[in-house]
């Protein structure tokens, strides 16, 4: 008997009037729509199409399947060509009309194009010393992504030249389990790891922020320059030590770009927000 992970699609039946009521905490009931049964492989991840179409990806150990929500059938299957190691996680790129999706396999990151399932679009081999645990695409800047791995590093890559990372951040002291860009302001980056830390980074140099390359030399606005410079340095904004065990997932809220949540092994779910001075500096 083999035990494998399965996946299930649910629908939340929220009554219309409750949707408009902000204070409502009732979700309604959940209706199970679709089961992905693990015939040959454990399902590691389910990814919704970022454009909101009715397709979703299921990342399994051996291959990645794209399913259509209406027909609930697999319309596309891609497999890693080189090695047979199990895939670990995946991510859908929001650019290029949501045709690209990446999956991590041992120490590499592979990417396919949904329009042609045969070849890989790019492959970042040996991204990290040990396994790559997580990958995230920059929502505003095409061709750039971030990965986190077991060596405790977060590396930034340009997919057009996959030999060298653009930047390496070494804030965590054990495995990095999750790396997430803020949906709107991509200089904010959340990372969490098995050292029970959640770190909020400011990576302006690799973001699409318009002001990141402005270097003004006016002497009259010294104070403003200092804060700007501070803002535009790559630095770690805050380390959240609310958890006491490994933090396995962090996500940004879809509704409010300044709020994020993190989940740790001991069942603690913490909701935090970006420090207000950073928020105002970015906005103003």
């Amino acid at each position, binding site marked *: 008997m083999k035990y494998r992970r399965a996946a299930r699609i649910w629908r939340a039946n929220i009554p219309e009037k409750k949707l408009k009521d902000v204070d409502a905490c009732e979700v309604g009931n959940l209706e199970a729509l679709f089961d992905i049964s693990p015939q040959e492989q454990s399902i590691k991840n389910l990814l919704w199409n970022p454009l909101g179409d009715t397709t979703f990806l299921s990342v399994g150990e051996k291959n990645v399947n794209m399913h259509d929500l209406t027909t609930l059938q697999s319309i596309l299957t891609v497999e890693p060509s080189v090695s047979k190691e199990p895939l670990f996680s995946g991510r859908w790129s929001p650019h290029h009309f949501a045709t690209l999706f990446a999956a991590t396999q041992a120490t590499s990151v592979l990417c396919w194009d949904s329009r042609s399932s045969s070849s890989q679009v790019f492959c970042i081999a040996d991204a990290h010393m040990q396994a790559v645990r997580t990958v995230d695409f920059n929502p505003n800047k095409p061709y750039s992504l971030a990965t986190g791995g077991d060596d405790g590093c977060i590396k930034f890559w340009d997919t057009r030249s996959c030999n060298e990372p653009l930047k390496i951040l070494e804030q965590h002291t054990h495995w990095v389990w999750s790396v997430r860009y803020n949906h709107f302001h991509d200089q904010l980056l959340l990372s969490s790891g*098995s050292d029970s830390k959640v770190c909020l980074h400011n990576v302006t140099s690799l973001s699409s922020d318009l002001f990141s390359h402005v270097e003004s030399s006016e002497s009259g606005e010294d104070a403003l320059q200092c804060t700007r410079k501070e803002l535009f340095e790559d630095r770690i904004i805050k380390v959240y030590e609310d958890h006491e065990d490994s933090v396995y997932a962090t996500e940004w809220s879809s509704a409010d770009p300044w709020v994020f949540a993190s989940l740790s092994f001991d069942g603690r779910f913490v909701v935090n927000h970006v420090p207000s001075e950073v928020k105002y500096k970015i906005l103003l």
Partner: protein
Amino acid sequence: MTEKKPNPLDLNSSNFNPNMYLDKLFKESNLKQIMDHESEIVKDTQTLHSDMQTLVYENYNKFISATDTIKKMKVDFKKMETEMDLLASNMASITSFSDQINSTLRGTRTQINKLSGVHTLLQRLQFLFKLPTSLKSRMEEKSYIEAVHDYLHAQRVLEQYGNLPSLQGIKSDCETILVELKKELRKHFSDPQASAKELTESVDLLLQLNEPASELCSEFLVCAEKRLSDQLVLLKDQSEQRDITEFIDLGCSGFLSDLCLVVASFDDMFINRNTNENIENSDIFENFAATELNNFVKQNMQKYFELVQSKVDLEQDVGDTGILVQALDRFYRRIESNTLCRDVDFSAVATDIVINAGRKQCKAHLQILKMHFADSVTKIRQSLTTPKLVSQEDSSKNLNELLSSLILSIVEKIKGVLQDLVVFIQPEINFAQKPQFKDSFCVDNVREGLIVCFMHHLTATARSYCAKVASDLKIPPTLLLLLSKLCLDFQSGSVGFLLSQTDELFQINPAQSAGLTNEYEISMTMQESAQELLNYFVRIQGLNVSQMLRKSVETRDWLHTIEPRTVRAVMKRVVEDISAIDATVALLYEDQGTNTEHSSDSSRKTHSISVSRHQYRSNWSSLTPNHLDSALVSNMHKLFSERIEIFSTVEFNKISILTGIIKISLKTFMECVRLKTFSKYGLQQIQVDTHYLQLYLWRFVADENLVHFLLDEILGSAVHRCLEPILMEPSVVDIICERG
């Protein structure tokens, strides 16, 4: 009172009263005294008497002699009178005779004067007539000085009377000869064999012959230039073959002395002359001459300096610092003592050359030090990676020895370098006293450029081992440990010593000179690199151990495993590896951390928790609330225990290092366990393994509760991931572990 009038009692006074005296005497003195007094007075009287007689006699004698003398004088005077009369008459006769002679000879004398005047004139004319031939003969003999001398002698006459037909011929002859003479003299200029003295003579003669001075001066300079450039070419040719001392000597004796001579002679000839010529031209000419000379000197000196600089650059051999310094000193002294040119201070240029030489030496030494360090590190690396043929005990002692020998060799080398370079500032050396050289050399080149730079190089090299890509795992981790201990030891011992030594030897006062890297900065950087290296070491070793654990968890089929009978081999391997690392680290880092004793309670305590969980777990299948309770219990336990930081800063002692490695490994173990699903027997195997680890790993860490906590977590995660969480009996676990 008694001195006012003559004392009547005084024997010598005029108011002497004998009766009074006698009365007094009789009153005051006794009989004997009176008797004595009487005899005394008698004696005195006699003495006085005799004296008087003597005086009279002498007086009488004197009178008689005086009379005799006067008589003699009278006689002599009479004789003299007669003789004076005779003299007077003789003088009169002589006067009359000389008058007679003068008058007789007057006539012939005037004739003779005329004749002698004509004679000298004729001689001069003869000289003039003979001038061309004599000049010609002189020319042939090459005695130009006499030739010019002769010509000048006759020049005025020729000019004045040159129009007379008789003299015209002579004049034209002389002029042609003179032209030839001038040509000859000028030829001297271009003669490479001519010495400076001969040149001076020629120029002098030409000036006397009224050649335009500016032309002469430029031509002189041109010819001197040619000769000097020949000298320079010679120097250049010799620069490869001879060594530097000989080269400098050659330069000094050849080129520089020639140049000095040229300058001195130029000065004498053209600038400092007592000019008889027009005053208005002489100033302009002097300026002109001075500027010409300056330019000439500057150009040549520049060429010379270039040659010297290139020769000094050629000096690759570092071992001859003493010789180099001697040669430079000689060179500098020579330049300094000559004031060749008023505008340019050549000693500044010379100082520059010397400074450059010093800088090059320092750089060469720095290269050698760097290479030596790289070699030593490579050797150590090789000795660490080659399989040990000697027995284990020898190799274990080697590590500390390797380190101490490395440090010692580095320090010795640096000391040697300092000793070598201190030659540059010995008190006998002239240029060492110049503050320009001293500051630049001691502070910039030696202290900052060499010593400080080398220390930074040490830290940079050590750091570079951290930054190596993961694929370059051929670096033995022990090397990292060694390098970190090297930085630490160096920082604590040698940095201060070396800096103070340098300051002492080179008389640098750290308080005065700004911009010196002080000891604190260097120590800080060294400490940082040591820390970085140690962190990296812990990371690497942690990674190695973690790989083993990870593979062991991932490759095993935990759902279909059999009941555990033994501890898995990989656990034993892990314990062995950690012991080996412990042994290696112990060689370098002493055991300063605290190590809690393995209390007999602690194992029981852990057991109690798992037992409590066990109690809850055994009811797991029946009721979910119990499951929640057990989760609560474990969470509460976590709340009250201290939070474990997986990678805090590693301290420089063995316990801290080992703790770091163990923490990383156990955390990895936990994460891997959390990704798997276990059956009952799988869980029990994990239980056995963790118990085994607990038995053996406690002694490596500072706080054994840490190990217990982590192992508990591992077991707890395994329980959560288990389908049938039924733990083994603790006694059975003990037996299995003891057996294994």
